[in-house]
């Protein structure tokens, strides 16, 4: 019952958050200078044509009216149509006039659903790699607070957090992909294309996991119940893996919820560099092209994903340690 109540409350709050997010992005896009119509009709079009198209698209209405119209569509599951992408998949270049009011533009919902699986795949792999890297290092560092293993965890964390992701991406592409021809890098033609970008992302996430794991495991290992477990005659392996780690996992799970936005931000840049056909790449292209409906759609999607994962995170934290308040 407690869990049900929690879910209802959090989902209601989550909807509110997504609503505020969409309002922020919607307003920002229209307040900040930069007219999408100018890009759609091309630089040479006379101003009265720009105005005519803008009025027809509803971009000259008051923001609140536009937002109301957008919300009405959103409630019916309609995120609008892209300004720039026709259904066929080609991007309409500036000057090459495509009438954005016609129905042959791609639906934002389709664009996002098409790419979301790719991004989720990349994010999932990155998380997996990050856990594989950081668990051995983090656990060793946490168990031996004042030894070289702790220093190793500390050094690795400081180094990894200091490598700019885009620079690492370029260097890895140069060495692993171009020079050694071990892994493919650009585009997407199969599962092997995920590995390199996922590795770069993993290096970005791993330091946070290592840091939290060493600190929380170190704290837990000093708790009285660990000494008692020793007195009860449990083996060291048993103490560490089934008692200490379980308690140390709560801060770790919480961290994943908080660091999610870092992860999403990282995904965006990495996808752009690797030309990976995910949401991040779509975002960069849409922002440069001022494709308002797509940007709004992506912002709503990411904030929904963020809210959803944070609910899961709190739930998991509660299941691991029922003393955690939810």
């Amino acid at each position, binding site marked *: 019952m407690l869990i049900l109540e929690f879910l209802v409350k959090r989902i209601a709050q989550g909807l509110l958050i997504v609503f505020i997010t969409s309002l922020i992005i919607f307003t920002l896009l229209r307040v*900040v200078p930069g007219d999408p119509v100018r890009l759609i009709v091309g630089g040479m079009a006379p101003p009265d044509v720009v105005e005519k198209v803008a009025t027809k698209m509803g971009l000259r209405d008051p923001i609140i009216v536009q937002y109301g119209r957008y919300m009405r569509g959103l409630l019916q599951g309609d995120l609008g149509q892209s300004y720039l992408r026709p259904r066929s998949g080609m991007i309409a270049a500036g000057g090459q006039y495509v009438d954005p009011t016609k129905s042959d533009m791609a639906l934002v919902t389709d664009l996002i659903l098409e790419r979301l699986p790719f991004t989720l795949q990349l994010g999932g792999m990155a998380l997996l790699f990050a856990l594989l890297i950081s668990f051995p290092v983090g656990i060793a560092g946490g168990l031996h607070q004042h030894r070289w293993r702790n220093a190793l965890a500390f050094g690795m964390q400081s180094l990894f957090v200091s490598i700019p992701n885009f620079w690492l991406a370029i260097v890895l592409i140069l060495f692993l992909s171009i020079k050694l021809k071990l892994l493919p890098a650009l585009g997407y033609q199969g599962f092997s294309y995920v590995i390199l970008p996922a590795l770069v992302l993993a290096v970005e996430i791993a330091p946070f996991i290592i840091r939290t794991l060493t600190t929380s495991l170190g704290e837990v290992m000093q708790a009285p119940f660990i000494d008692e477990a020793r007195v009860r005659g449990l083996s060291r392996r048993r103490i560490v893996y089934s008692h200490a780690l379980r308690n140390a996992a709560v801060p770790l799970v919480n961290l994943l919820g908080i660091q999610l936005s870092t992860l999403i931000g990282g995904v965006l840049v990495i996808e752009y560099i690797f030309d990976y056909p995910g949401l991040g790449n779509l975002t960069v292209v849409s922002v440069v092209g001022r494709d308002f409906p797509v940007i709004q759609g992506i912002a709503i999607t990411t904030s929904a994903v963020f809210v959803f994962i944070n609910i899961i995170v709190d739930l998991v934290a509660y299941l691991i340690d029922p003393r955690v308040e939810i």
Partner: protein
Amino acid sequence: MTATTVIAAEPEPRLARIRSVNRRILAAAWGMSSFKVGFFVFIALLLASAIYPEVSSVSATKMVVKDKFLAPVYLGDKWTWDHVLGTDQLGRDILMRSLIGLRYSLLVGIVTVLLIFIIGCGLGLFAGFKGKWWDTIIMRITDAQLSIPMIILAITILGVSRPTVPTIIIVLALSGWPLYARVARSAAVAERGKEYVRGLRVLGAGDWRILLLFAAPNILPPIAFVAVLDVARMMIFEAILGFLGLGIQPPTPSFGSIIADSRKYLLNAWWIGTIPGIFLAVALTSINLMGSALEKARNRIYGGL
């Protein structure tokens, strides 16, 4: 680690009690070799980027086409002592460009974190201390802001307006404050229930007086120590923006745009992208070493670790 034994060997209880918690954290951090290494490297880079461009006659933006693609000293078949770290595709000195880039990077990083700290902690303290409606409203806005990834917000704003140093700082600060608000709020909520706050209430002190004069000095320093780490994070974000073409605009050099341009020449002139990358990575490592040492010291003093 020798550093920890030094600390353990020096307890002298009387002295430790007199020194404030913050001084003890600083002293503990200073005792770690990683902090000292980071500190000296950071100071060296800071001085180099502040002084060298002022005294040197080399220009960071002047193009000398006949000097293009010069390798760093002893590292290629064409190099001169005039350009110690080589030149780029337009014959500009890489050392100078890296140092100027570092200057902007540090400027953006430090100012942004100061702003974030002020905005985030201010709102967080206020929300936590006032409670009730203020708390709910501020924290829900924080949640909404937190759910928009920083980069999406940044490129949305910078992508449509002309990126200059102040706009970059504002955008980064705008997207960075929520975490601080959360941390400061939870600290303020914990502080609100403490004995001394209730005591002050009984003595008739107002909310603001308690908050600013008594609670803030307890809550803020631990957050400030960790904020050092965020300087590095903001520098990375600045570089990412530059890389996407949304950072400081050319011809002013910035790490991101230099590295983005160098991609084309990676195979035959590796130094154009690699050297600025190393500069950036070294600067970030030095800041992170200091930051993590401070964090570790803080955890040790507060948590007894």
